[in-house]
């Protein structure tokens, strides 16, 4: 891995304290690592809950069915079984789980935690068994007899939209969940009059998040306090708390959600609310006994939300120079059996135009119900699909006009002096879709230079003349990130003189304990060693949204910066009184506040906390000293900030096997200012590996009856170190003007353009055959079929 700064180094958003090493921008090694490399991490299934019962779910094996009856008699007699509940046994839970993001146009169908009558996808839970151990609970599941009336199912958007398609939901007259169109300019007129038009249909397969730790939830009800404590493996503890309070009719303060300190990855599905999340705490309350459910991988394959499946019908109109006049994209989005949220297709809608100036845009979503597990966000969240539609067509334009694909892109790119740039569409919050900042042409040129694009083209020509199938692909993207509504940080000077940063957002491996200490350190001018970070407990901070959508550094980072500055002032206010010195003369030296740089006139944080936080019972505080050194700050961005990037790849196709080898891969990335370059590189490279999976390997395949066919890692291939190639990184830092740190999101950009880039490269490699690559992932079988098809062009 090689990192290279091509623009000026990141701007330091925080003025460094004289004499103190700035922490923002430093590649600080993670505080989390020591426990994780020594086996001392604490994940959900590592919780100490002595005597906890364990649960297992009965799940429907049919994609569409009516439950006639459930016989639990034999299972209930099994020694070690504590209780069995079907949906009908828990009428209190027959409440719909609301979509996470909705729209007035959505024809919403109720999603119940444990549906009592009607099931809509294989894997949907119909009963829960609680037993002394998971082993016994699974034995009991085997003994439960469910009588189903099996109904016809649909398992693709094409099938769902067919004229006589079986209906996923009896209540609706077709399978359309939502139909939304957005228009800028006069796209129909522009298509009619454009000198050149090209169209294509692209299919992107279903794929999952596949965090290495599956989902899970444990719960304990305390009769004495009336408090329910829930440990879920969620990305959004406050969302889980709010949902549980809604389901159980409890006060939010009586539901404490604690995410274990370590989480084995999220990638989107853990930001959603699944039915099991409502069932397990409820039976723990019924039993007055702790209950734990840890999802196993077989369940994860059928019951955890997925994403990606879309079919795009895209058409572009352009002039003789390859300048875009219009893009029209109509896409089918597979919502699955229920709408868990509209965030993904709405993001696809608005991501389509990407880095290009396009005067006329038509972007149209047809969201379909299908009999498959519901879809929601997975790393990239609707963007990789939009980028496939746009970036594949950029290559087709170049091919059509005999131009270079890099040149066609550069001719259409929004210029650096056009920001803030209004795209002409509406963002999902209803505001005009506006890019805040970036410099797409300069990053593109830097990537082309690093890639040695011209040299790579020459080498490609040589390889071709030697009979080798070598191709080059590019893929540019924008990513709206740092989304609202808000995130918070609570900073407190604790009784031992440590500054504690408490976040509502919960980490999934990003290194929050490190980077938020870096931010607080610069905000306060205090060394990192005196700063600790706590996360993921709703009892420690009242409001929060969670870690998703590449938003946390922007929101929680800015909140930490604001709160850190205020906390410094508060501490200095106390120190000023204790030292008899004006606050302007104070600074931190180690764990002491020092007046005029004189260590003889200083007071320790411990002594400050003694006066301000602890006090003496019944004794008046010194005048001018505030009670309690604590600051809670929330940051609400005015709109999304836009990260951007462009990838370049060279691939070689083996004509005998259809196998694709990646020979080179360069990633250009701009996520604004960087808090910790080591960790940002890690995010980009990890996201890239996920993109490689989507491009070449991963598909959650369902047969026509809605039966999942890839329900183990033998059938669903995750990329290993063998498949993920070496990457060269190119960085550009264009600070966002929308937050005081100037940061943008980094969590998903690595994934977003990979499928489009690889597909472009493979099609380029196969250009001698005129082969078309229109379906992802690009398996050897598809390559082979494309090469042998006769009716291209």
């Amino acid at each position, binding site marked *: *891995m090689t990192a290279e700064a091509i623009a000026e180094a990141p701007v330091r958003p925080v003025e460094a304290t004289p004499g103190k090493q700035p922490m923002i921008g430093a590649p600080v*090694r*993670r505080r*989390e*690592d*020591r426990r*994780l*490399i*020594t*086996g*001392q*991490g*604490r*994940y959900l*299934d*590592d919780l100490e809950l002595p005597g906890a019962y364990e649960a297992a779910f009965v799940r429907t094996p049919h994609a569409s069915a009516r439950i006639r009856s459930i016989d639990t008699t034999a299972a209930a007699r*099994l*020694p*070690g079984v504590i209780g069995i509940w079907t949906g009908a046994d828990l009428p209190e839970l027959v409440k719909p789980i609301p979509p996470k993001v909705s729209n007035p146009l959505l024809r919403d169908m109720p999603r119940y935690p444990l549906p009592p009558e009607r099931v809509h996808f294989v894997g949907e839970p119909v009963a829960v068994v609680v037993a*002394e*151990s998971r*082993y*016994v609970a699974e*034995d009991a599941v085997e003994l439960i007899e469910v009588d189903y009336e099996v109904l016809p199912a649909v398992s693709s958007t094409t099938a769902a939209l067919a004229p006589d398609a079986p209906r996923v939901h009896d209540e609706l007259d077709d399978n359309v969940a939502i139909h939304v169109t957005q228009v800028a300019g006069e796209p129909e007129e522009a298509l009619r009059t454009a000198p050149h038009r090209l169209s294509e249909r692209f299919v992107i397969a279903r794929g999952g*998040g*596949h*965090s*290495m*730790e599956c989902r899970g939830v444990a719960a304990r009800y305390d009769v004495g306090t009336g408090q329910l404590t829930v440990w879920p493996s969620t990305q959004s503890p406050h969302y889980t708390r709010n949902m549980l309070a809604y389901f159980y009719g409890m006060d939010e303060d009586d539901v404490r959600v604690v995410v274990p300190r*370590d*989480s*084995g*990855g999220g*990638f989107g599905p853990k930001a959603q609310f699944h039915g099991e999340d409502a069932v397990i705490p409820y039976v723990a309350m019924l039993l007055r006994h702790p209950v734990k459910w840890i999802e*196993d*991988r*077989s369940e994860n394959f059928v019951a955890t939300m997925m994403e990606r499946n879309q079919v795009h019908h895209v058409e572009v109109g352009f002039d003789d120079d390859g300048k875009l006049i219009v893009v029209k994209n109509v896409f089918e989005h597979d919502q699955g059996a229920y709408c868990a949220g509209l965030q993904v297709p709405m993001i696809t809608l608005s991501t389509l135009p990407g880095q290009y100036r396009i005067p006329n845009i038509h972007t149209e979503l047809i969201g379909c119900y299908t009999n498959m597990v519901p879809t929601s966000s997975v790393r990239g969240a609707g963007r990789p699909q939009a980028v496939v539609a746009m970036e594949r067509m950029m290559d087709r334009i170049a091919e059509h006009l005999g131009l270079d694909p890099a040149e066609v892109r550069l001719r259409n790119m929004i210029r650096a002096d056009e920001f803030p740039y209004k795209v002409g569409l509406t963002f999902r919050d209803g505001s005009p879709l506006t890019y805040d900042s970036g410099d797409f042409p300069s990053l593109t040129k830097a990537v082309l230079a690093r890639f040695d694009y011209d040299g790579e083209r020459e080498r490609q020509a040589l390889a071709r003349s030697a009979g080798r199938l070598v191709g080059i692909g590019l893929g540019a993207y924008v990513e709206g990130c740092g989304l609202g509504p808000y995130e918070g940080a609570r900073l407190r000077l604790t009784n031992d003189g440590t500054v504690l940063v408490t976040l509502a957002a919960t980490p*999934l*491996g990003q*290194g929050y304990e490190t980077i938020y200490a870096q931010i607080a350190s610069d905000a306060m001018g205090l060394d990192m060693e005196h700063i600790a970070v706590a996360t993921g407990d709703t009892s420690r901070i009242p409001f929060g949204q969670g870690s998703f959508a590449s938003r946390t550094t922007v929101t929680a980072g800015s909140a930490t910066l604001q709160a850190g500055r205020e906390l410094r002032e508060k501490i200095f206010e106390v120190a000023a009184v204790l030292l008899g010195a004006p606050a302007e003369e104070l600074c931190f030296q180690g764990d002491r506040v020092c007046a005029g740089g004189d260590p003889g006139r200083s007071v320790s944080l411990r002594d400050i906390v003694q006066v301000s936080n602890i006090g003496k019972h019944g004794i008046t505080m010194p005048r001018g000293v505030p009670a309690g050194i604590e600051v809670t700050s929330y940051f609400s961005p005015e709109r999304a900030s836009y990260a951007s990037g462009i990838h370049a790849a060279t691939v070689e196709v083996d004509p005998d096997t259809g196998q694709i080898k990646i020979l080179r891969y360069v990633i250009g990335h701009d996520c604004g200012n960087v808090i910790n370059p*080591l960790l940002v*590189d*890690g995010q980009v*490279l*990890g*996201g*890239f*590996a*996920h993109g490689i999976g989507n491009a070449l390997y991963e598909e959650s395949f369902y047969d026509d009856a809605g039966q999942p066919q890839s329900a*183990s*890692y*033998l059938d669903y291939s*995750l990329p*290993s*170190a*063998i498949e*993920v190639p*070496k*990457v060269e990184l190119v960085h550009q830092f264009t600070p966002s003007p929308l937050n005081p740190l100037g940061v943008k999101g980094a969590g998903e950009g*690595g994934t977003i353009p990979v499928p489009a880039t690889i597909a472009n490269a493979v099609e380029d490699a196969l250009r001698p055959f005129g082969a078309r690559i229109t379906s992802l992932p690009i398996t050897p079988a598809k390559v082979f079929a494309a090469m042998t098809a006769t009716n291209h062009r």
Partner: protein
Amino acid sequence: MPESPSGTRTGHETQVVRTTVNGVEREAEVATRLTLADFLRHELRLTGTHVGCEHGVCGACTVHVDGAAVRSCLMLAVQANGRRVDTVEGLAGPDGELAPIQEAFSKHHALQCGFCTSGFLMSVAEALKEGPIETEQAAREVLGGNICRCTGYAGMVDAVLEASQTSYPTAKGEHA
């Protein structure tokens, strides 16, 4: 030792297992169907070994049995009877000194969520016992039996090459 044999909790016949785990002799009466992974995690409370797929693909549960790397989700606890089991908790020295591969993982940011990390460390540790790992390709092959969803493996490749150089200072290596 667990006070109540796990057999009563799993509703199954039991057997006594005697094994040496990280150098400590352990004896327990366990259900014959209890996996080695569950035995280590839930009976011995060595929770550093993680269970990611329960079908032997992801490698998160990798431990050493008599020095060989195995998937503890595919092995029964009773099969460890009379054998030596080493887990990630035993990788660092008794004084807490990290093994070269642990140190290199942290230095090269080869871990993020950490869930797969124990398995990778145990796989690499076994490979390093056999000899130096001198090329990027060789490092990738050693890592290729496990799955990580967070890192993209680049840091791991660097970490393996560096750990190999630390363990075999005279061997040739790609790592500078």
